[in-house]
């Protein structure tokens, strides 16, 4: 596919800098309408940013502690409160619901607004203390008075003890009633209303742990078909499963695998083929996967290989040994679609992230870096120097900062607004040229 070039369609624009001043951000997610964006941090705190509307700016909406650090007494292990994933539920009433998960437990939260409060109770005074009945001489009807907006977040369900291994994915079903949670070896399906039972739908744990060579890395339900889901593995395969086929979906309906190129095989081939994230397109027709060096688009109707492959940072291929040594090769990058499925985006190192226009095949590199960004500043494209004529501003491969990695990101479901998590900063960008979605 084409190398970095400026593409007018995806050259962006406004920067709204929002700093969380907290610990490392571990997940970012827009809700279905894009009004709310939640980012959660490794300390288990979850912060929600709401769209104030006109100006398109996002401000802090609410903050809550989702998970507490836990201690596994049997194994003397600390269970981190770091949140691995969050997913919003489709909105059914005024309140918003979201699921959040740490390594072990999934919680359902209700986010509700309150901007009115009743005043004029008969039996209670202003502070809520019970009045002495003898002092009440007349009855009044309590009235609702507007107050400052209060956002309440309450845990509604706790789905515990469902997983023996670390949960890496959760995905809400299109039926709005069930969701799946995946750990390294198993996938469970839950009903949102039932916390003490779950169905195990995939189990790849071998009878003998010595034989373990493959783990589940991500899973997601199909956006429209409530019986279909996909899960990815550490060997680079994708499995599409149909829950109508059997109760236990160990046998896949379709296996998506790209045949290995024997010429480029190395000891690191398997590691770099491990899929770190899988996302259905909004249309439900395509799958987007991210492995260490590439992002691939697959057609659900074709399991022989991806239909598109985008090189995210091919210049790292010659550095794989060093990246293995410093563990960077195990970094799990996420990937996202835009609302019209015409652009895909994923993160890289040095606070860079990449966008690829599927129609032209061209990619662009952008940077999420506080020092160079002011509100409403235009993002400029960056380039990693890999040979040829060196341009001003090119960054050499050896000067890349591998501690600044963009792992988590989200794209607004209907507009060209993106949220990028860079270590402990959250950036939100908006397309100035096309603030509304382009229709396909």
């Amino acid at each position, binding site marked *: 596919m084409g190398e970095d070039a400026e593409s007018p369609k995806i050259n962006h624009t406004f920067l709204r800098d929002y700093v969380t001043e907290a610990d490392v951000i571990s997940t970012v997610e827009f809700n279905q309408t894009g009004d709310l964006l939640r980012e959660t941090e490794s300390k288990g705190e979850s912060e929600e940013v709401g769209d104030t509307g006109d100006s398109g700016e996002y401000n802090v909406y609410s903050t809550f502690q989702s998970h507490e650090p836990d201690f596994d007494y*049997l194994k003397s292990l600390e269970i981190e409160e770091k949140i691995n994933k969050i997913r919003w539920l489709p909105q059914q009433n005024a309140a918003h619901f979201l699921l959040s998960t740490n390594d072990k437990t999934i919680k359902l939260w209700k986010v509700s607004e309150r901007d009115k409060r009743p005043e004029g109770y008969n039996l209670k005074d202003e502070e809520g203390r019970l009045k002495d009945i003898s002092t009440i001489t007349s009855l009044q009807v309590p009235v609702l008075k507007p107050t400052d907006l209060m956002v309440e977040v309450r845990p509604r369900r706790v789905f515990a003890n469902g997983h*023996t291994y670390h949960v890496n994915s959760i995905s809400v079903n299109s039926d709005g009633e069930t969701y799946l949670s995946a750990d390294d070896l198993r996938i469970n399906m839950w009903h949102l209303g039932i916390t003490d039972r779950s169905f195990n739908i995939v189990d790849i744990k071998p009878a003998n742990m010595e034989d373990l*060579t493959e783990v589940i890395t991500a899973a997601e339900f199909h956006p429209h078909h409530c019986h279909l889901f996909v899960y990815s593995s550490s060997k680079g395969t994708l499995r599409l499963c149909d829950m109508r086929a059997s109760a236990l979906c160990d046998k896949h309906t379709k296996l998506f695998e790209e045949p290995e190129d024997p010429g480029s095989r*190395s*000891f690191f081939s398997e590691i770099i083929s491990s899929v770190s994230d899988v996302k259905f397109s909004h249309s439900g027709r395509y799958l987007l996967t991210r492995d260490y060096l590439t992002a691939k688009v697959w057609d659900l109707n074709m399991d022989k290989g991806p239909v598109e492959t985008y090189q995210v940072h091919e210049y790292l291929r*010659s550095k794989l040994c060093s990246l293995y040594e410093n*563990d960077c090769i195990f970094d799990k990058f996420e990937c996202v679609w835009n609302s019209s499925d015409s652009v895909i985006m994923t993160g890289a190192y040095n606070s860079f992230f990449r966008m690829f226009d599927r129609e032209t095949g061209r990619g662009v590199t952008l940077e999420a870096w506080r020092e160079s960004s002011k509100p409403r500043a235009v993002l400029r494209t960056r380039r990693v120097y890999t040979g040829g004529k060196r341009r001003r501003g090119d960054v050499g491969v050896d000067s890349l900062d591998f501690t600044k990695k963009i792992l988590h990101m989200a794209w607004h479901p209907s507009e060209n607004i993106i949220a990028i998590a860079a270590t402990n900063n959250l950036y939100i960008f908006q397309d100035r040229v096309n603030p509304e979605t382009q229709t396909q």
Partner: protein
Amino acid sequence: MFPKGTKRKFSDSGEEPVSSSDQGQAASSAAAARTLSSSYSLQRQSLLDMSLIKLQLCHMLVEPNLCRSVLIANTVRQIQEEMTQDGTWQIMTQALAAAQCPADRLVATEVLCRQTDAAAQAGQSPKPFSGDVETEVTMSTLSPVSPQLSSASYLAGPFGEQVFGTFEIKHPAPPPDPALEELFSDVDPSYYDLDTVLTGMQSAPKMGPYDLLESLSSHGPTALSSSSSCRSDLNELDHIMEIIVGS
């Protein structure tokens, strides 16, 4: 960036070359090239050692990561398979069998070389490094020590169980008997944690590095901050290894 004429060998800098120019080459000619290149086999050896060390240190991670362990274990198996095909695996195990003095380790060697279980085939500690390789491997400070680290005796026996057995999250048992608790109240729980961690290394010789690992881990994973990374652990270990080895 692409050394001319190399076929599927590590480049001199110890990094994996992009074989864009060599994709047409048959695997067999690549295999032939490999056996001829001693630098390749040294680099392969260093990769094996690095991987074994990573596997051992998996338990020291703040966030034990099963996926990472599986990938590293698969890399080890892959190297071992290739070395078995080249015949270098046998040479290595025989040399080590000769070098090992204590009888129990000789027994361990024999156990390791059993063909039945692929996992049990995983071998002994690698040969001592030559000086060349040290410069090529970034974790060079560990390399003089690693041959003595019984990283491979770690591989002895149920390889998978040791590596993967500790990744399960066990759900808390019902509240313990207060009388029993009192009985064991003076026992440092982190000690038993260490036991669990080093379960697979029963036959490990008590080396300086392990004493060090012990003292590091006796603070327990609970003391490690949740934001520290494996990298900082390894760097810390590197630094300490440097001190021990006196390099």
